[in-house]
């Protein structure tokens, strides 16, 4: 069997059957030829989530631009479909041609968040592909993984054949060409993997091992092959204006989380917030020119018929020339009756003004992320924004007709005291007062402030990678403290579940031994862990016991600068020295200027283009 028979009877029994049928507007149809390389692009979450993801849309069309490659999509089937698939002995299949995964040359997973890892194992199992690399045969597809979480590949190392470190547009062509050659040569899979040791940006985990000290820390990172490099360098796109960008986007059948054209304005971020992994691993900032962006916008609106366009970036306000660009984009969108959505704006006069222009009706709420409640703590995390700026921004927003504001904060940041937690409530109160100081005639009635907190998770390749995470008990105390500090009924408070964050921390900074935890959790029935209603902490605890994993060792333990970290063999661009310096500055409560003000020599400036060489 190479294709499954997705019968009407099965489809009629599941919720949202359109998740499984494929054939959407702008999806790719190809005649399959014998020497075509087949790539199954797997997103380890449900259709609506995966289809909202820009990276998948880019790589899908990037791969399919090659005639000798056919890239198809695969998502995690929802529980109802999974049950029916098992009942009918139907293996996991691709949307485009309903081909079973075993029949592909590559099965690729995108690693967007740690809590999707059990879904990866589940998808492999549903595909009848052995989970562990060493158990797979010559006939099984190669399992490849990339995306932001691949920067610490170790917790998935035993399951994955190839990790791709960096931006997809750079090395996949090399990989495909080498694969073609290898397939024609009739050599073994191992020989192919050996060849890949020469390719920049690829990490082949079977040629590496870890040994441990008695206290559980890593003793040594070993290479098991003479050609295995000590450090695997991230690959990055040098000329962002020239790089491939799709002219079409697949328009999902059912309403996705984000159902719109997405314009990638730039990669990277100039800010350097010390908790933010994206801000470090996507360095350096490379922004697309206004002309290129407008071209993309035109083509994508034409090819999708979407009624909304969103500007994607880590910090939209930092786009140089945002004024001109937004004006031109607005006039383009007005002609086509298209709305603009602007996430990730800073709170300043310009942004509020811009929001006013793009949203004729102030229906939606404004979202700001001060991240910490006091100036001290904002300086610790290098979130370069003052209270005055926040209050000013809110005042402008209220005067501009908004009455609903969402505020995002983090709890459990390094150096946080009780005062900092209470500071969140105090800041929210000050914002409320700003609202009430405005003349009744000039403001919208019915203030609604929503304060949301997430639990800080220390991530690899951030200045806080050595820092301990708070315990569940401490998070709960802080939740209560904050809840009790908020007195005004117009301010609502909600918070993330601490237990999910603990696991995120364990996996994010996990070493190779953590793979056993993920495996056991999966075997205990955990999937869709990022979905609150599916998350079962007890099962993870049971898995930890079975796998001999101590959550505290990974989550709440402080690491020394001399400790070997599980991701030390990955060169993400920023140097360890820089991260240490930043962590020390955090301890001294000293901020670092952004990349445009002054280069801080983070180590990535090996590129000829981009912000690093502007000053």
């Amino acid at each position, binding site marked *: 069997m190479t294709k499954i028979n997705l019968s009407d009877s099965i489809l009629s029994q599941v919720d949202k059957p359109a998740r499984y*049928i494929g*054939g959407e507007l702008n999806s790719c149809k190809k005649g399959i030829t014998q020497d075509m390389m087949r790539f199954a692009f797997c997103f380890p979450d449900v259709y609506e989530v995966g289809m909202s993801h820009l990276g998948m849309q880019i790589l899908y069309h990037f791969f399919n631009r090659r005639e000798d490659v056919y890239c198809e999509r695969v998502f995690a089937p929802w529980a109802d479909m999974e049950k029916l698939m098992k009942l009918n002995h139907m293996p996991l299949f691709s949307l485009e041609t309903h081909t079973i995964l075993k029949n592909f040359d590559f099965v690729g997973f995108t690693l967007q968040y740690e809590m999707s890892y059990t879904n990866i194992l589940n998808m492999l199992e549903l595909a009848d592909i052995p989970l562990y690399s060493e158990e797979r045969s010559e006939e099984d597809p190669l399992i490849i993984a990339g995306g932001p979480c691949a920067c610490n590949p170790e917790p998935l190392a035993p399951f994955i054949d190839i990790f791709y470190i960096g931006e997809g547009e750079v090395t996949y062509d090399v990989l495909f060409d080498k694969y073609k050659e290898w397939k024609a040569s009739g050599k073994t899979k191992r020989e192919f993997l050996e060849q890949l040791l020469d390719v920049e940006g690829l990490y082949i985990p079977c040629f590496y091992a870890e040994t441990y000290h008695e206290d559980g820390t890593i003793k040594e990172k070993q290479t098991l092959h003479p050609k295995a490099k000590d450090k695997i360098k991230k690959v990055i796109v040098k000329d962002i204006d020239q790089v491939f960008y799709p002219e079409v986007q697949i328009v999902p059948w059912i309403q996705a989380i984000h159902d719109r054209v997405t314009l990638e304005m730039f990669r990277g971020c100039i800010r350097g917030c010390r908790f933010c992994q994206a801000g470090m691993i996507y360095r350096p900032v490379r922004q697309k020119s206004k002309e290129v962006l407008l071209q993309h916008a035109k083509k994508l609106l034409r090819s999708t018929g979407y009624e909304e366009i969103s500007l994607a970036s880590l910090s939209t306000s930092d786009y140089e020339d945002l004024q001109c660009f937004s004006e031109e984009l607005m006039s383009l969108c007005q002609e086509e009756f298209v709305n603009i959505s602007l996430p990730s704006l800073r709170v300043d006069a310009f942004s509020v003004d811009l929001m006013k222009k793009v949203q004729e009706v102030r229906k939606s709420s404004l979202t700001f992320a001060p991240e910490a409640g006091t100036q001290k703590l904002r300086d610790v995390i290098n979130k370069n924004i003052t209270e005055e700026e926040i209050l000013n921004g809110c005042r402008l927003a209220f005067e501009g007709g908004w009455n609903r504001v969402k505020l995002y904060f983090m709890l459990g940041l390094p150096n946080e005291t009780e005062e900092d937690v209470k500071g969140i409530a105090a800041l929210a109160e000050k914002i409320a007062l700003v609202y009430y100081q405005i003349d009744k005639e000039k403001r919208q009635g019915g203030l609604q402030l929503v304060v949301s907190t997430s639990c800080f998770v220390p991530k690899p390749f951030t200045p806080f990678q050595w820092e301990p995470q708070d315990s569940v008990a401490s998070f709960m105390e802080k939740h209560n403290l904050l809840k009790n500090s908020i007195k005004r009924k117009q301010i609502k408070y909600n918070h993330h579940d601490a237990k999910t964050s603990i696991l995120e921390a364990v996996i994010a900074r996990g070493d190779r031994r953590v793979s056993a935890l993920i495996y056991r959790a999966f075997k205990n029935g955990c999937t869709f862990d990022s979905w609150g209603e599916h998350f079962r902490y007890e099962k993870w605890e049971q898995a930890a016991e079975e796998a001999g994993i101590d959550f505290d060792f990974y989550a709440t333990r402080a690491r020394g600068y001399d400790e070997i970290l599980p991701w030390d063999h990955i060169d993400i661009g920023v140097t360890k020295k820089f991260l240490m310096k930043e962590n020390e500055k955090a301890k001294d409560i000293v901020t670092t200027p952004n990349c445009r003000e002054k280069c801080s020599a983070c180590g990535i400036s090996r590129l000829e283009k981009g912000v690093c060489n502007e000053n």
Partner: protein
Amino acid sequence: MKIRLKFVKQGQVKFVGHLDIMRLFQRAIKVAQIPIAYSQGFNPHSLVYFAMPLSVGVSSTGEYMDIVTTIDVRPETIKEQLNKVLVEGIEMIDAFCIAEDTGSLMSLVSAASYEIHLPKATFIHTSSAAMTDKLEEESLVVHKKGKKGIQVVDIKPMILACTLEENSDDIVINLKAQAGSSQNLSPQLFLKAILNEEDGTDKWVNITRKELYVYDQASYVPLECYRRIV
């Protein structure tokens, strides 16, 4: 200019729901660069209208859609442009101008015809003879779950025509029944009334909606023949 289009929805795309199909059309119309008109106001939307929703899993060879264009275009051209863009399973098969004062599709529909295939292999307790008997009775009462709780309805008056045939695999029912906003008999409710209870109602049945009708001058006229401007 008001244009009425007739299209089919077949194959797995029948599992895409009505609202999602509406969104698809709104987008496909833009992609096909049809000079569609927009409503006035804060949230302008394109002027595209549909007839009666088709439930998920039901195919159709007789769906309708009205659009308003800003300039005069040949209906035939619109049909072709859309077919170039549209996905597998959905195809425009007719397009024609209608008078500006023609009522909305929604208000016009008063009957629909269906072809229903019951696989004999799964409907073991049901026979065409038994169904014919039921159909010949004076009334055909069925419990219907609605907003106001369970109601007892007699569907007999809503059946306009019904024939049964058998081939080697299926019992084939051709049903024409009242449909639309005032009186509506869904094929699912019809089946509930005439199937043997032991066969249950959750087995897969292949249903195709064949045509929609408007009640005009004491007869049911297919929408494609109604007030067509040539």
